[in-house]
């Protein structure tokens, strides 16, 4: 089962929370959605789950629009815990068992042990991290084919964060389509094979992570005198932005770093180097210049 979002737009009054968002999460793929707070990630998720009605665009799961039956196969873990405070952990598992046909009791017990959950405890007595742990344990217990996770590791200690990564990777290896958002770049770099960066409701960078890393580079040229950008370079489709600082010019390249190097060689710099960009670099660059996605990182 896959998720497909086409031209999703959602407005709240005068404010546009999500603007023409399109992306797909294939079976077995993990899509990491990044973005600053308020970028529209949670809103996008709400639209995917039928909690909010889009103003434009469509969302299909496994090629079909969302229906109650879809939730047999779909798990959602929201950013803030959505558990019944007055019920115990055991009652939550019982509720899930009665609600979902695919609930796996053995798996649930396993996950309860991994997350060190005390079944008899009322949820209101749990710490924030334990809230998240319960929600995650429930989500994975139903053997989902599609998952939507909003900041799945928030409040968890590093050990459990590893556990969550393992669960996501294991589910993806089993063919589940997973859409998740996270502020933890390290987590996204490991778990995701595709990423999207959302800023002010718009997708400013999107694509296969490995391909993006292969394409997105910084070409640094050091000159003998004040660096000046050649005419037209800033308008080049391959160039995201140019940063000039004294005798150093850094050209942030979307793809074809080699071609840009050739172009800069003509200026006879003293030295010319190409540097890789980590996902964090790409993220900071993408939300910093506020570009509207002047072409995507050649996915």
């Amino acid at each position, binding site marked *: 089962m896959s998720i497909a979002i086409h031209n999703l737009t959602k407005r709240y009054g005068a404010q546009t929370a999500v603007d023409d968002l399109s992306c797909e999460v294939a079976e077995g793929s993990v899509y990491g959605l990044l973005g600053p707070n308020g970028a529209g990630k949670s809103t996008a998720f709400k639209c995917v789950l039928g909690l909010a009605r889009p103003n434009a665009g469509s969302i299909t799961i496994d090629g079909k629009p969302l229906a109650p039956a879809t939730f047999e196969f779909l798990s959602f873990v929201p950013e803030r815990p959505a558990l019944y405070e007055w019920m115990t952990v055991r009652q939550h598992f019982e509720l899930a068992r009665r609600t979902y046909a695919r609930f796996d009791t053995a798996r649930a017990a396993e996950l309860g042990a991994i997350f060190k959950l005390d079944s008899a405890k009322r949820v209101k007595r749990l710490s924030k991290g334990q809230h998240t742990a319960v929600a995650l344990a429930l989500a994975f217990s139903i053997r989902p084919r599609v998952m939507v996770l909003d900041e799945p590791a928030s409040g968890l200690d590093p050990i459990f964060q590893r556990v969550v990564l*393992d669960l996501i990777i294991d589910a993806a290896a089993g063919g589940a389509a997973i859409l998740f958002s996270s502020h933890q770049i390290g987590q996204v*770099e490991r778990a995701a*094979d595709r990423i999207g960066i959302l800023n002010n409701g718009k997708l400013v960078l999107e694509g296969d*992570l*490995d391909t993006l*890393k292969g394409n997105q580079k910084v070409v640094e040229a050091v000159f003998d005198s004040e660096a000046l950008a050649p005419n037209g370079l800033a308008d080049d489709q391959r160039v995201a932005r140019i940063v000039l600082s004294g005798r150093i010019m850094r050209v942030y390249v979307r793809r074809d770093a080699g071609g840009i190097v050739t172009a800069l060689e003509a200026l006879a710099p*003293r*030295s010319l*180097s190409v540097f890789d960009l980590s996902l964090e670099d790409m993220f900071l660059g993408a939300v910093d210049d506020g570009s509207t996605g002047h072409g995507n990182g050649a996915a």
Partner: protein
Amino acid sequence: MAAIFSVDPRSGVPLYLQLIEQVKRAVALGVLAPGEQLPTVKALALELIVNPNTVARAYRELERDQVIETSPGRGSFIRSNGALGESRRAIDDVAASVLAEAVREARALGLGRDAIRALFEQGIERWFESGKGKLS
């Protein structure tokens, strides 16, 4: 098995390329023998804690480069012949680019040809001196 591979997801180098290089390096150095079985995509993804599609892509490329062969149902194995050659070649490429990069860097720091050659000799002396044992 995965302990012999080490990848850095934070690096700007695509993960699948890192993994490909790691496998070729292991083959070139004899750590992985021809005919030896590699972990499944899922197992390796879980061990390295990386996305399974990334591992799958690496395996596909390794197969295309004729370093490994995959038979459905049985798994992935280092090829009995040809793997060593290809890996050796790949590692030589890596070594060449590392050295070229070092020269470029030294040049950018202002050193001339002779200075660079002298430093190079020093380096060789240091690392190939008898009694120092194997490179790590």
